[in-house]
């Protein structure tokens, strides 16, 4: 366990509202990731970060933005949530060892 916490763990919101999910790590890992988990699709990469203020898009980045102002925090923002963004979101970290360490997940429901 790499000391990765996600907040909130559960959130219900309405279409069109902004949502921010937070990932916090205590291991000083350089790389951080946001994935979404959906049945039949597995885990799909949304965005990742390779350092403070250094981020890049993943496979399913449309409708999402991220920020990393500190090594320990990686924020995922849905500017205007849609029902298609209802999912379980996982944060992960990596320190170039080849092993990803995951948070417990954040379940988001967009009504």
């Amino acid at each position, binding site marked *: 366990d790499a000391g990765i916490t996600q907040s909130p763990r559960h959130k219900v919101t309405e279409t069109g509202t902004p949502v921010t999910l937070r990932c916090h790590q205590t291991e000083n890992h350089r790389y951080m990731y946001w994935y979404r988990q959906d049945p039949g699709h597995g*885990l799909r990469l949304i965005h*990742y970060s*390779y350092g403070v203020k250094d981020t890049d898009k993943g496979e399913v980045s449309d409708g999402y933005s991220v920020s990393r102002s500190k090594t320990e925090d990686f924020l995922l923002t849905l500017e205007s949530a849609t029902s298609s963004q209802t999912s379980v979101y996982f944060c992960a970290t990596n320190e*170039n060892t080849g*092993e990803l360490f995951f948070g*417990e997940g954040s379940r988001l429901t967009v009504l």
Partner: protein
Amino acid sequence: AQRVTQPEKLLSVFKGAPVELKCNYSYSGSPELFWYVQYSRQRLQLLLRHISRESIKGFTADLNKGETSFHLKKPFAQEEDSAMYYCAGVDNYGQNFVFGPGTRLSVLP
């Protein structure tokens, strides 16, 4: 494009039976392959990786470059093996991890 496929969404076996979870990959170069597992109400965790060539919880996986496969095997399944299993690969640069859709293993008593 890099891709990892797992053809089975659900695999059910009886306790004590052999189990094989299939994984195929499409990568250029020499990727590194992994199996991650998610037990009920737990976070995803690494089960094994091909470069370590070790057996974890009785599971093994061999990288077959000719068939571009990395199937996960266990000779005698246990009920506690019931979980969601994801095959994943990472490219030569080591940071873009791609996951397959996952296979849910159910081991019946």
